[in-house]
């Protein structure tokens, strides 16, 4: 029952969850370095979370029974996704959902967060939810299409754990236009989904530019900690998906120790590279006006559609 593969896939899910604050810290550190600052330590996000978990929370009188449940829904959907995606090793601990289910679990997270923003009836929360929903109408189809394009490209169906294996086996033939198009669409989606520049500024609070932070305005203490942790996990999960679904080369396909060690080194190198690229992008771009973001989002949607079309027509 307890095979090597199960143990390794469980460990990789735990690692994925555990390093998510670290990834956020890493991006912040890279950004600080690019701006010639020393910046805070890369383990600062852990300290922040710990502090939040130790605090009491304040809940608005206008909120309903749902308000306190939302952090749990958000965090558990993210933990479930973490169990569902390959990271170091192609096996997964919870192979009960496929890529389509994955996209819809992200929708569950988003739906819960948006409803949380509407709780309490403050203008900030409503505004954050409204903007998040505007973006998501364009993000979500792009996400679905780019992931479907990869599924069709690999020929492994919609099973998540099949895709890295199939892509690795394809070798250089996998480098077709569809992969490039889908990956570029996915990168834009990743930035938009995780409220990064140019869509949103993750380091502002209480300014009219914000989307993600505005939805969390009524949360405090432990609840806020859980929402922050799930947001950090979402970023890490997206980066891991980019690593293992779009560029899986190097991922461990067997449970042999050498394979696992290569897989760990490869995935860590890829994660650090992506974190560096995100930091580079955020340091060289500015947050764009709200009504300019649809242009980029539409571009992402069109790229993913082209990826899909190119698979069927080329």
């Amino acid at each position, binding site marked *: 029952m307890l095979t090597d593969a199960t143990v390794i896939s469980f460990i990789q899910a735990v690692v994925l969850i555990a390093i998510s604050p670290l990834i956020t810290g890493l991006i912040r550190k890279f950004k600080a370095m690019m701006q010639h600052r020393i910046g805070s330590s890369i383990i600062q996000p852990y300290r922040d979370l710990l502090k939040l978990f130790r605090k009491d929370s304040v809940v608005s009188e206008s909120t309903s029974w749902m308000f306190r449940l939302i952090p*749990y829904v958000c965090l558990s959907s993210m933990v479930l996704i973490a169990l569902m995606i390959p990271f170091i090793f192609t096996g997964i601990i919870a192979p009960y959902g496929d890529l389509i289910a994955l996209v819809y679990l992200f929708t569950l997270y988003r739906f819960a967060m948006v409803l949380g923003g509407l709780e309490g009836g403050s203008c900030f929360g409503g505004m954050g939810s409204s903007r998040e929903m505007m973006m998501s109408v364009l993000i979500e189809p792009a996400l679905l299409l780019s992931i479907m394009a990869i599924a069709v490209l690999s020929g492994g169906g919609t099973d998540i754990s099949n895709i890295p294996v199939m892509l690795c086996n394809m070798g250089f033939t996998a480098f077709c236009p569809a992969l490039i198009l889908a990956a570029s669409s996915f990168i834009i989606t990743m930035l938009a989904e995780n409220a990064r520049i140019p869509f949103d500024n993750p380091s502002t609070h209480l300014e009219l530019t914000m989307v993600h932070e505005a939805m969390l305005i009524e949360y405090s203490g432990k609840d806020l900690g859980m929402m922050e942790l799930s947001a950090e996990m979402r970023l890490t999960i997206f980066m891991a998906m980019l690593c293992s679904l779009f560029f899986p080369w190097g991922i461990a396909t067997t449970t042999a120790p050498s394979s696992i060690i290569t897989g760990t080194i490869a995935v860590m190198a890829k994660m650090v590279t992506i974190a560096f690229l995100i930091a580079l992008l955020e340091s060289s771009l500015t947050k764009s006006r709200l009504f300019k973001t649809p242009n980029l989002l539409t571009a992402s949607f069109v790229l993913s559609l082209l990826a899909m079309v190119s698979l069927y027509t080329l």
Partner: protein
Amino acid sequence: MVVSVVPLKGGTLKGIGLVLCAFSSIVGVLTYFVIGDFSYEFVIPSAVGSYNLMFDQFTRLLISISSLVFLMVVIHSVGFEVSDDEKYVCLTNLLFIACILAMSADSVILLLVAWELVSVTTFLMCYGADETSRWRYFTMTHMGGLLIMLVFAAMWSISGTYVLSEMNGISSIAGSMVSSVLILLLFIGFGTKLGILPFHAWMPDLYAGAPIHTVTLLSTVCSNVAIMILVKGIFLWIGVPDNIFLIVLMLLMSSATAIWGAMESLVQTEPRRILAYSSMENMALVVMCISAAMLFSQIGSESLVAVMVVAAILHTINHSLFKSLMLMTVGTVENCTGEHAIEKMGGLAKVMPVISVFALIGTLAMAAIPPLNGFISEWLMIKTLVSADTTESVLRLVIPLVVAALGICGMMAAVSYARLYGFMFLGRPRSEAVAKPGPVYRTMIFPLVVLASLCIVLGVFAVPLVNEITESVCRLFGTAYNPSANALSGSLNPPILSAILLVIALLLLLFSRISKKKTKSSTTWDCGIELEKQMQYSSSGFTQPLVHVFHPFYGDKIAYANDNEEEGSYKVRFAEPFTEYFFRPLGRLVYGMAEKIGKMQTGNIQSYIGYILFTLLTILLGVRLIC
């Protein structure tokens, strides 16, 4: 506040009617479980042969689901007050019979009569809706009925039999062109009931004005009837013709309808209108599945045809569950608060927590959030679409576009439902009536409990239902049913997935209990200003960014109507572009022509005799020339 004593509003006659209707719908629910396949022949002497009924497995499945919805509607309507209660209940009974007859009819005449009866009863049951929308519905649905009548008459004359089950794919006799036309007419004919673009123009206004139970039945049971006859008509009686153009046209129309429905539902300001457009969107998805199944049968992937039809039927069933749940929830809220506009609601989750739980389940199911039932059918649609393996290059372009359309309308619809729930139940109350709602009766809650739990159960344990549908569809098509080749087996395991989700959530909850922190209650953060009830996001403001982005599709026109309740207040609503820019000019054109023709009407008998003579001569000459 839940009150257990339910006053029966209306007289004893209403009570008897309700009991009768409840009894017959219980019998209807049992159809699937108790009796096997059977057929029955009404021996009525008539010129057109006998009237046959046929209950095959497919029919019985849909009859059971529709009867269940019917039963719930009947129970829910006990505590409601409608003008002319007795007549209303009588019509409800009649509608039930009409729906069952239309679903099980095996003779052309019976089917047409029953379908006509469905249209007429639903029209009569729309008290309260304004006259324009009622007559618009009447006209459109009868135009559709006319097309359906034409199709069935043609089928009769081509096949030479009035028994539907004896028509096995008349397309082989009729040829590709004729059968394509027949299918298109059938599609448009039932499309008027389902709300296919541009025949949806009757829906929002009628949904906004008619009694909630009529709306519920119209949106769920009548749609089930239409979908069922459409499936049988296309795949069984007529047979899919070899015409790619027709299929692409149907796919295009249904995708356009789905996206249009989702987009328009974003700007509606009444829950019922949102649900009207949502109904249109969901039915368009079902028709999209049917068209995709036709496409698959053309390109030779026979195994996928049945799966795609299963997806369509599964979505029809799921739609009838979550939509009836949502419509009745909205009906309950309206009944208790007296408010119809979403801008006057808000904060209901605090004062009506029980109702809000069911509304949330319905909303999540509609938005296709896992692990509820709406998700399963959307999953099946996307999964089947992308697993199509085609070689024909033109069609290969179609599949990604359909998936894209599904993605866009799914997400837009989700936004619209988040808005529906968020502004009805969350936030702070926007009017006095909503802050202190009236009592809720047990009879109003019971149907919601049943439907909400079905939405969860049929989502988590969807596999048995999918098996049943697959079996019935396979038997309908006469293909071999292979239980191991379940459409849901393999990559998705909803029970375990939802169990894991639940376990994680419980573990987190347990974990957070270890260090119990104090929770203080305070006011919403207000920047130091006392928040008034209007000082929160409005539902129109919520979707304003989206309207801004998709501006060209909405049109600028905003309809203003005076609100009688408060001095100086007004309603704002986006006008439905199809009504404003297509049907109104069309109506004006027809009126204009009628006025011009009306000048012939002089009142002079001599000239009338002249017209008759002229017409007769023309007809006789025409006949002479043709024959």
